[in-house]
């Protein structure tokens, strides 16, 4: 009973801190009373105090016993360790702040980048088991990566492949815009058609109501919509009674049958989903690519199995005589599958992984630096530790002391890192595929953060702990200022860390350098048109209205040219497909001619300053009643008419018997989809004036004034023909061009930032080592100088040491960067993966940093007055 009571009290006392002060006060009053009594007894004050002290016995021994009595010993020592560690850390605020901040930066940025990678590539929000969702990829012969746009017939095959695919669905991008009119406001909504199983493929469940049935995915039965959560909130204020209500889209009534959960937004930026309701005959068309096909693999099926299944299908199609409309076998046609997340991320995938690698490097450097600092501190405290060891502190206790400091630092760094990550995620998510990012930190990421912290604790905590555990108190006590075994091991370890840091930093610097050079070349690339002073807007009015709108816009002051185009270059929309050249047979083993397609009105080429190479531009005379004409770009001309004049040749887009288009002009190539990823695919242009069309089209207006001043002009012109039509995507052409490089620019900037941090940290590490060496060898310097060594030779000693370390690091770094260069080769632009200029420049920069980092402490060594140092010993 007594023991229990005591344990409880002891435990509770752990949380009280007043004990120590009270004890001190109590003991002091005890001694004072003794002193007073002694004085009263006739002693002199000094003698009285001396006698009182003798009588009391060891003051600290009493306190120690008191403390032992007070606490639960194990917990108490553990807490003691931490308290001691905290005190030590607080005594060196400079060191602690630097350590925590660097750690926070390292862990924070790592966590942020990882959370982004996780969200984009591993666990996209709103999708169940994203690793089982694949996208179909169609490829024509040598067409490189292929496209995720496939044909209805391919969809039917995949949909029937139930042994491989649990669900299959498609979204149909064509005609997916819808005007929603409520009161005065006209809203342009993105309302793609999707097939019935779309939501099953992604495992997306509606928050309210239901999703489409098979029956509703039929022409005529498809007047139903599922709202995205954001649209529901925006248009209906989150009214739950919206289910069953009717909304009007571009004049047609649709019944709202469901509201999707807030996380699921596929396809990207979707406002609401409509049933695709493709007419049945379309599903026989093998080569009419228009659908994005997504499918969910059966749980037991791997991606490789799905691919080989699709490969069998491709072979069957190629050999089985599926007839293309023009009657030629599509020999080089094939279909394959890609993880859905990869198809969404596109080139961002490499960027993300690259950033992940880069921040990983930075974290490593951070850890190495802190390990270096800790080792330096171990050295500085060698004497203190030796004294403690000599006084009987067990090795374990010393070891625990060192580890406690690391744990405290890592905890503080981890917490601060979490804060950094929270702040950095929204910034970084600019990099995620546009719109898909609902950036946030989740449990996975928190786990990563904890793991990163633990790893850094182990990494930089163990080195000094290991040092302490190999501690030789005797040597340390004897040899302050002189080299001893433990000391030189420590220095070697630190040098090793510095070499590693330098290598990592150089690798980052070179990688960043390659990206900077790529960006510079890319910005200098001519996209094939001149975006300066060009304004664009998108809207959908019948093409018969285009001349009236153009007339109004051209009348505005400053406007020099205007025309329509669809799709707008650099807007990441694409149209195209195979065509046939009249009078030419294609060998069954060759792929059919294929090209991108753009529809334009006269004035477009002039507005975009796309140069005419041969023949003529379209004119107002190329109208519906005239002969159908086309223009091609130089790439198409070179590819299919390499040794002849394409002018006057005719191409056919449909089966034999359908109209042919005569080539009247050859123009310059426009990069597509942007300058980075220019496929080099040729383009043929059709005249919008020869086509009855109601879909979206972009207006392109060239002005000698501020292009944004045209916003009102364009809106007014559209209103004059149809007041109910919304005008959207009002961007300058320069916006489009800048946006196409935005991701790369961001990645390059981040890489540059990481590389600069790495350089700084590596220099800091080197500075630490050299600076410590100078302190250690102060005596030696003194003797050298006293014996007549020139200042320059002393300087050379230290700068040379720093330079040697850095040079080894540079050597390793160059080899590593050559390897990494090969990995990122496909993302570099007009710069070799091993670019001697970049390597040399960056190595020089690093060595310069190293020289500076060694020069500064070495200069301090020279200020040493030999007499002072020698006497100091």
């Amino acid at each position: 009973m007594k023991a229990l009571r005591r344990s409880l009290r002891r435990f509770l006392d752990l949380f009280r801190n007043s004990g120590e002060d009270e004890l001190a006060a109590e003991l002091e009053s005890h001694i004072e009373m003794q002193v007073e009594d002694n004085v009263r007894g006739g002693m002199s004050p000094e003698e009285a105090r001396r006698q009182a002290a003798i009588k009391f016995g060891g003051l600290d021994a009493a306190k120690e016993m008191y403390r032992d009595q007070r606490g639960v010993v194990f917990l108490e020592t553990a807490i003691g360790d931490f308290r001691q560690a905290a005190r030590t850390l607080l005594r060196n605020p400079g060191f602690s702040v630097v350590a925590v901040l660097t750690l926070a930066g390292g862990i924070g940025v790592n966590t942020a980048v990882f959370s982004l990678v996780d969200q984009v590539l591993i666990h996209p929000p709103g999708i169940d088991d994203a690793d089982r969702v694949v996208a179909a990829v169609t490829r024509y012969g040598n067409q490189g990566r292929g496209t995720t746009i496939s044909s209805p017939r391919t969809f039917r095959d995949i949909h029937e492949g139930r042994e491989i695919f649990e669900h299959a669905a498609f979204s149909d991008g064509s005609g997916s815009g819808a005007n929603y009119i409520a009161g005065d406001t006209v809203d342009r909504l993105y309302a793609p058609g999707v097939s019935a199983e779309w939501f099953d493929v992604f495992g997306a469940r509606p928050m309210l109501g239901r999703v489409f049935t098979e029956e509703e995915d039929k022409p005529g039965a498809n007047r139903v919509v599922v709202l995205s959560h954001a649209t529901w909130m925006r248009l209906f204020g989150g009214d739950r009674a919206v289910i069953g209500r009717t909304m009007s889209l571009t004049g047609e009534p649709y019944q709202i049958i469901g509201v999707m959960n807030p996380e699921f937004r596929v396809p990207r930026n979707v406002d609401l989903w409509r049933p695709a309701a493709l007419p049945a005959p379309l599903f026989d068309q093998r080569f009419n690519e228009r659908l994005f096909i997504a499918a969910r693999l059966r749980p037991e099926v791997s991606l490789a199995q799905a691919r080989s299944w699709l490969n069998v299908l491709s072979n069957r199609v190629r050999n089985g005589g599926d007839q293309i409309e023009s009657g030629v076998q599509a020999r080089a046609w094939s279909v394959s599958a890609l993880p859905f997340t990869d198809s969404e991320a596109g080139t961002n995938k490499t960027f993300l992984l690259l950033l992940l690698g880069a921040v990983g490097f930075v974290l490593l450097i951070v850890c190495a630096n802190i390990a270096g600092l800790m080792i330096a501190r171990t050295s500085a405290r060698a004497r203190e530790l030796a004294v403690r060891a000599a006084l009987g502190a067990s090795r374990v206790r010393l070891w625990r002391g060192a580890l406690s400091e690391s744990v405290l630092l890592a905890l503080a760094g981890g917490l601060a890192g979490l804060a950094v990550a929270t702040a950095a995620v929204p910034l970084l998510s600019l990099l995620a595929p546009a719109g898909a990012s609902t950036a946030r930190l989740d449990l996975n990421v928190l786990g990563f953060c904890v793991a990163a912290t633990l790893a850094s604790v182990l990494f930089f905590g163990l080195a000094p702990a290991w040092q302490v555990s190999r501690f030789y108190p005797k040597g340390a006590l004897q040899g302050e200022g002189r080299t001893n075994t433990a000391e030189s091991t420590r220095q070697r370890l630190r040098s090793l860390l510095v070499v590693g840091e330098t290598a990592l930093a150089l690798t980052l610097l070179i990688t960043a350098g390659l990206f900077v050079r790529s960006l510079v070349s890319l910005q200098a690339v001519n996209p094939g048109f001149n975006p300066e002073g060009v304004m664009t807007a998108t809207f959908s009015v019948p093409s018969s209205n285009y001349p009236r709108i153009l007339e109004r816009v051209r009348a505005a002051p400053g406007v020099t040219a205007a025309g329509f185009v669809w799709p707008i270059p650099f807007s990441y929309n694409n149209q195209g497909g195979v065509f046939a050249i009249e009078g030419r047979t294609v060998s069954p083993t060759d792929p059919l001619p294929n090209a991108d397609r753009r529809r334009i009105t006269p004035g477009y080429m002039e507005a975009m300053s796309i140069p005419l190479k041969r023949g003529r531009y379209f004119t107002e005379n190329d109208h519906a009643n005239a002969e159908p004409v086309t223009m091609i770009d130089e790439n198409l001309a070179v590819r299919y008419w390499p040794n002849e004049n394409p002018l006057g040749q005719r191409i056919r887009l449909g089966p034999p018997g359908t109209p042919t288009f005569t080539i009247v002009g050859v123009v310059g190539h426009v990069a597509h989809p942007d300058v980075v990823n220019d496929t080099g695919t040729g383009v043929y242009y059709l005249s919008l004036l020869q086509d009855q069309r109601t879909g979206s089209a972009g207006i392109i207006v060239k002005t000698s004034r501020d292009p944004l001043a045209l916003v009102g002009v364009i809106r007014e012109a559209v209103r004059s023909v149809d007041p109910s039509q919304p005008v959207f995507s009002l961007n300058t052409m320069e916006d489009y061009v800048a946006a196409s490089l935005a991701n790369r620019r961001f990645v390059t900037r981040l890489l540059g930032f990481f590389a600069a941090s790495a350089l700084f940290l590596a220099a800091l590490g080197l500075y630490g080592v050299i600076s410590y060496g100078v302190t250690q060898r102060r005596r030696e310097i003194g003797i050298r100088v006293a014996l007549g060594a020139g200042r320059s030779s002393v300087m050379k000693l230290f700068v040379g040491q720093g330079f040697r370390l850095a040079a080894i690091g540079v050597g390793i770094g160059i080899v590593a960067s050559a390897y990494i260069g090969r990995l990122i080769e496909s993302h570099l632009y007009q710069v070799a993966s091993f670019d001697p200029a970049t390597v040399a420049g960056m190595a020089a920069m690093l060595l310069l940093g190293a020289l500076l980092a060694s020069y500064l402490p070495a200069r301090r060594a020279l200020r040493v007055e030999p007499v002072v140092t020698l006497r100091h010993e």
Partner: protein
Amino acid sequence: MSKKSDVWQGTLALMVLKTLNALGPMHGYGIARRIEQTSGDLLSINQGTLYPVLLKLEQEGSIASEWGVSDNNRKARYYRITKAGKKDLAVEEREWQRTKDIIRRFSALGESS
């Protein structure tokens, strides 16, 4: 906290309780003086060892303490015996009495042989 100090603590604890029981609330120095007077030089060298014992007794609830002012106006911590302490003291005294008897009998055994 070796076994040896447990015996020492036990002895000292009993003396503390006895003193407080007999003389009422006292500060640490007072207790030390009193024990010194009654026990000769038992505590004269190492008064500091008293404090862990006081703490232990307080943790066990046998004594309680509060801060007060001494006769010559010095801040001091006063200890007093609690009800539980009195009960403990009675038990301990009986124990000691018994131990003492046994020891005496053993000692007598040695003398008589």
